[in-house]
């Protein structure tokens, strides 16, 4: 990467920001050049999102200075930041669910006709072009956003940011839900944009992405900057240690090597639903971690929902502990004699009640077990909660604050903790480490192994192939609502996962770029 002589495109200094008692940022500085990709790294809650929210005008810093091209700027709102060429893809998507893709892409400065009204045709064209630029040609610009899957929405979000032709593009975990294939396209695009002179600030918890993309990296910890360094000058484990501030070993704990002698705890036969699930057969034994792989949106979510009792009109048989069950509600799925838990895809809207306290959220699913005659036994509840906070190392200012004020990773832990409190025997997880830092990820992986060792059966859906390979005993790859391949042992590697995900014949050749990613995982 060439070092340019030009002054910094962006320089922030002395940025401090508190939320109530929480110091999110403390005297933080940050600089970046034209034509560079600058990665921000740090644990959950390190202050990365806060920093870029300050930069993009969403929140106002308590003190500090922002300079763009040498001029001091002060953004009162995102609109002003936009106008000066700062475009941000936020961690929480900022798409408008009821509007079409094209409307979303053209939301701030749409093309107008001669009456000054929005020119829908031109807008649609712009949207199509923007989508094509990020490699989302297959997204219909006239589709309503709420009908899109999370990964499609992220593609739209990227297209939306790009359509504004920013000077500084900020991506806060904007690729967390993307599949490997999409990620490739986005990389290519980012490289191109960088070469065209755009400055990109990139936040991700996926180390391989950073390794491949970034020119410069800055690590934050506890609201303070730790160090800025050129990508590739530090080993991965050194970076991680910088982030978590302690020594670090391999992410993935050793898999247990139990012989599968026990009877299956869950047995699914010819499970079908509504064209979206076709003849699913699967067996899980206590202690097993089974992965669900494949491209996003191939029925993995539906399969988990089906097992959790939300699908109407499914056919086929489900047996739990050898007894056939007819699952028709989550309430039934979590009941004592079935014991299924689901950590859903979207923690904000499916997992948490954001304005309720951490305490209330944690005990919510199991609260009836901690109550007598409908009255909560607060002492028992408090004990159980403390135990869970301890177990999951949930970092919160106080557990009587709203869960919405927690960082993403801690929110995810609360969702998992909520279900662990019900003492489930079968745990379904939908991408539980999305947007979660390496340190926390590791904690979650350890937890999964621990739960498996205690006899839980775990069905883990993940868009991250490394995770599937690192955690699972075997992986079921889904395509178009079917399980097309089961990978285990030595067969469980990235090449096979990718080819199975695309439903290619078993020995097909894989594109070289994808191979490059192998071996980069920690």
């Amino acid at each position: 990467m060439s070092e340019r002589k030009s002054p910094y495109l962006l320089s922030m200094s002395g940025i401090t920001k508190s939320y109530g008692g929480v110091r999110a940022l403390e005297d933080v500085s940050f600089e970046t050049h034209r034509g560079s990709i600058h990665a921000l790294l740090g644990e959950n809650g390190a202050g990365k999102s806060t920093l870029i929210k300050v930069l993009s005008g969403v929140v106002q810093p308590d003190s500090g200075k922002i300079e763009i091209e040498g001029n001091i700027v002060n953004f009162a709102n995102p609109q002003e930041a936009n106008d000066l060429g700062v475009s941000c893809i936020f961690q929480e998507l900022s798409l408008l669910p009821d509007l079409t893709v094209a409307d979303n892409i053209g939301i701030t400065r749409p093309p107008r006709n001669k009456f000054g009204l929005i020119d829908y045709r031109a807008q649609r064209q712009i949207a199509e072009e923007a989508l094509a630029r990020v490699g989302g040609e297959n997204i219909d610009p006239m589709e309503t956003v709420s009908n899109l899957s999370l990964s499609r929405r992220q593609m739209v979000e990227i297209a939306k940011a790009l359509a504004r032709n920013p000077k500084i593009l900020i991506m806060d975990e904007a690729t967390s839900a993307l599949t490997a294939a999409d990620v490739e396209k986005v990389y290519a695009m980012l490289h191109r944009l960088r070469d065209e002179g755009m400055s990109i600030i990139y936040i991700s918890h996926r180390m391989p992405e950073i390794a491949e993309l970034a020119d410069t990296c800055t690590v934050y910890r506890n609201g303070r900057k730790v160090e800025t360094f050129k990508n590739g000058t530090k080993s991965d484990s050194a970076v991680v240690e910088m982030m978590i501030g302690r020594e670090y070993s391999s992410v993935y704990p050793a898999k247990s090597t139990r012989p599968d002698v026990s009877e299956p705890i869950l047995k699914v036969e010819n499970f079908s639903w509504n064209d979206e699930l076709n003849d699913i057969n699967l067996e899980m034994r206590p202690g097993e971690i089974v992965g669900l792989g494949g491209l996003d949106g191939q029925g993995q979510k539906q399969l988990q929902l089906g097992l959790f009792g939300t699908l109407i009109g499914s056919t086929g048989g489900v047996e739990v502990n050898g007894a056939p069950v007819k699952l028709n509600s989550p309430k039934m799925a979590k009941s004592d004699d079935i014991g299924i838990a689901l950590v859903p895809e979207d923690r904000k809207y499916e997992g948490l009640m954001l304005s309720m306290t951490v305490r209330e959220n944690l005990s919510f699913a199991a609260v009836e077990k901690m109550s007598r005659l409908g009255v909560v036994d607060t002492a028992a509840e408090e004990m159980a909660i403390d135990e869970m906070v301890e177990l999951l190392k949930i970092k919160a200012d106080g557990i009587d604050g709203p869960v919405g004020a927690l960082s993403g990773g801690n929110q995810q832990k609360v969702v998992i903790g909520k279900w662990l409190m019900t003492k489930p025997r079968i745990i379904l997880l939908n991408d539980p480490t999305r947007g979660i830092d390496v340190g926390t990820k590791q904690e979650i992986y350890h937890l999964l192994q621990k739960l498996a060792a205690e006899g839980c059966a775990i069905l883990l859906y993940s868009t991250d192939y490394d995770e599937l390979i690192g955690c699972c005993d075997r992986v079921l790859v889904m395509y178009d609502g079917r399980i097309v391949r089961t990978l285990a042992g030595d067969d469980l590697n990235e090449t096979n996962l990718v080819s199975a995900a695309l439903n290619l014949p078993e020995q097909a050749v894989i594109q070289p770029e994808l191979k490059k990613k192998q071996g980069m995982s920690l």
Partner: protein
Amino acid sequence: MNVGAEPADLVSRQKHFAWVRRLSAAQRGILIAMLIFTAMFIVYGWKQAAGLTPNMINTAANKGALLALVAMAQTLPVITRGLDLSVGATFVLSNCLASTIVVGGPVATTFGIFGVLLVGLACGAINGVIIVYGRLQPLIATLATSAVYFGVALAIRPQPGGSVNFELADFMTRSSFAIPHSVLLLLAVVVFIWIPYRRSVLGRATFAIGSSEQAAYMSGIPINRAKLLAYALSGLLSAIGGILLTALTYSGAAKMSIANEYTLNSIGAVVIGGTSLFGGVGSAVGSIFGAFVMRTVGDLLIVFDINPVLQPLFVGVVLLVAVSLGSLRVLRIKNRLDIYR
């Protein structure tokens, strides 16, 4: 091979029903309201002893147009995920004011009309300012302003009376070539106010705000201006309704019961017209049909011989059925999670 492409058969399956999916939620709402209205109106016409004469259509149109205007006024705040409980009071205030100043020759009348529209706009703008800059919940803010507006209406017209430019009133409530002028007025409002608004940047911003205020803010949308405009326009539309009421009654009257009736019915009309109370989805055109549905319920009373003491029950039941029709979608749901949006 394109790595990111969705499997081919999946794409084709989605394309198959493309045109149904292309109908936005709002368009589907309009369609349903239109169907309900047509069905009811056919029953009404068919039960009419004298048949559906242009006179009767005109009568029905005049009555429906009033509620339609107030319902359109209600639509805008609802789209932002707000609510305007003062539409009825603004409507009554405009009526009282119009019965005082929309009089005299053409020039005076024109000034009078502008005066009333301006006052309506001001009422709406005051709501907007309180909600946007005062950051009060729309429901309570407009509940409070509705008391204020009603008080002012009462001061203007302590008892029913007043008058209005006769030619204007007559013109507004007549029909030409069997087309009621009140329907033309609605059409004009749609063409000159609603459609431009819908297609303007600030208009679309209201949909964005209703869809997700936070996302709208993060997207750099001028939230404050868009909300202000929505409430102000709401006041304007109520004022147009108030002028039409004046034309229909040749007088003004400050009655709280009328204000409340129109406010509550406007909410019903908006919902029947396919606008979501959760914001982000809706159309003033749907509200027009919603209003006509609500109004036709009353017309059915006249053609069916219903025992007077059973009439309110009849109205209530028909209303409840019309409301519940929209709920039939729960029967089609295949994933229980989809119920909870």
